């Protein structure tokens, strides 16, 4: 590698990895302040004032944070529980192979599957009708596009917890936990004591950076809420997409304001992630992890 190439590499990285995001965010900020764009008439805070006083904006952020936290929490709990309970079964090659299958399911396809199964004329409704749980199609509860975001949460958990299960399983062996558990048992610790005081804390500490990063991905989820979520309050990616795609150009500054707020939130979370990652000293995105 020549010296010239060495100096050009950071420049290439900045041009294609950082500059597009930075330029996009600066443009969004300037647009939200009325300084660029077709509607720009000079510096104004009016777009910010109107957006920040809009209930639907806060509802969108609230719904997104609650769903992302709930899916991360439930998936982590499920993965931990299954890892501890089904560990002998999880070591069988066929089981391990099939555990990877949900990773081959992109969010759009998982959402389509849930749409087909959870909808009012879906497979679950048909099964319920055949076994006599319901008499008419209207008797089946709304499980998609519903007020409680059941369809979105179910689908996200279906996609997330197998990944968490594989992640925690790899940490389980990387942290040498079978030997620690055996040592604890030799010293007289009960199984539940070993689980709650040794295995779960170690696993959570090691997996914390990845769990936090996954929370960020879920916060910005798009395909699943697009098919299965509600229009209002919409999750944040849907909310921003709606504002950008509406025919009313007055919505554009609002879209840019929300984009800037989302970015600030992301920067805060990534900073926390970075600190957690440094503390745990665990590389989370290496090919071996």
């Amino acid at each position, binding site marked *: 590698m020549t010296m010239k190439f060495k100096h050009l590499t950071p420049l290439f990285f900045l041009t294609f990895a950082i500059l597009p995001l930075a330029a996009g965010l600066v443009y*969004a900020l300037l647009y939200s302040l009325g300084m660029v764009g077709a509607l720009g008439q000079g510096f104004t805070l009016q777009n910010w004032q109107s957006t920040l006083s809009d209930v639907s904006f806060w509802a969108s952020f609230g719904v997104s944070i609650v769903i992302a936290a709930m899916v991360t929490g439930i998936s982590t709990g499920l993965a931990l529980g299954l890892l501890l309970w089904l560990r002998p079964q999880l070591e069988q090659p066929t089981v391990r192979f099939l555990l990877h299958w949900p990773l081959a399911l992109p969010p759009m396809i998982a959402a389509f599957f849930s749409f087909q199964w959870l909808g009012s004329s879906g497979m679950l409704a048909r099964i319920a009708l055949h076994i006599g749980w319901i008499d008419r199609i209207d008797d089946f509860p709304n499980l998609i596009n519903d007020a409680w975001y059941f369809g979105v949460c179910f689908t996200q958990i*279906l996609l997330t917890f197998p990944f968490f299960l594989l992640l925690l399983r790899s940490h389980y062996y990387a942290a040498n936990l079978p030997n620690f558990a055996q040592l604890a048992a030799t010293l007289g610790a009960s199984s539940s004591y070993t689980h709650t005081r040794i295995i779960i804390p170690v696993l959570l500490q090691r997996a914390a950076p990845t769990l936090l990063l996954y929370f960020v991905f879920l916060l910005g989820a798009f395909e699943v809420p697009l*098919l299965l979520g509600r229009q209002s309050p919409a999750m944040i990616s849907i909310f921003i997409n709606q504002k950008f795609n509406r025919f009313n150009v007055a919505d554009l500054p609002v879209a840019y304001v929300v984009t800037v707020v989302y970015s600030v939130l992301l920067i805060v979370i990534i900073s926390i992630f970075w600190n957690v990652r440094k503390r745990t000293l665990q590389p989370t995105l*290496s090919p071996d992890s």
Partner: protein
Amino acid sequence: MRRIVTVLLLSLFVLPFGYLLLLSFATGWRFPALLPEEGLTLDHWTNLGSTGGNWGASALTSLLLAIAVGLISTAAGFLTAKQLAAHPRRSLWLTLAYFPYAFSPVIYAHCLKFFFNVSNLSGAFSGVLLAQFILTYPFAILLFFNHFDPAIKAMEDLTYTLGGSARAAFWRVLVPISRPALLICFFQTFLISWFEYGLTAVIGLGQVRTLTIAVYQYIGEANHYVAALASCLISLPPLLLLWLNQRFLLAPGHGNLA
């Protein structure tokens, strides 16, 4: 009990693939039927969508895009990570690489849209390719960052000590020992592109019709049989990679794709 739970769990994981495959062969499967009423047909698969949907062209677009994105991102990520991992400000570069990676692709696409519009790249294959490269390039760097550890550096230095040129060190040492990591990165970036929907929809304006874009259109048109077919096609490469991983690369001495 544990055995039953395991079987139920695995059935849940396999069910989407089985159901979508069956739906792709169905013609009439309406409420309240539990199974297709009018039997199964190969028509949706054999006519390549020529009677509606044109999924064959979408599959080709997705394939070309994913291969190009995978190759370019892997090559660029490998070269960049090699330099940045040895840079005095290594930690800063790594932190910066996380931001575009963690950003929601659809929101990122809206941020970029203005620049793509003024460059006439919106709605073009090259525009979507560039946008997906911008998305996958930081990911590739993150994948390779930990790969370039002191052991690899020592091996490279040994080549120079033994009189090897920079070219020989790169092609005869670095690339061969990095082959598993290169493969993993290619497949991961290939799959990101193959699965991508939001960014492609915003930058491609619906004119670059990949399989994921097609699936959403089919669902909107209530053409569920062809949507299921396109879903099967989308799931095929990752399942194939999983099988290859299980069959060949899980053997001792090989890298792991999954």
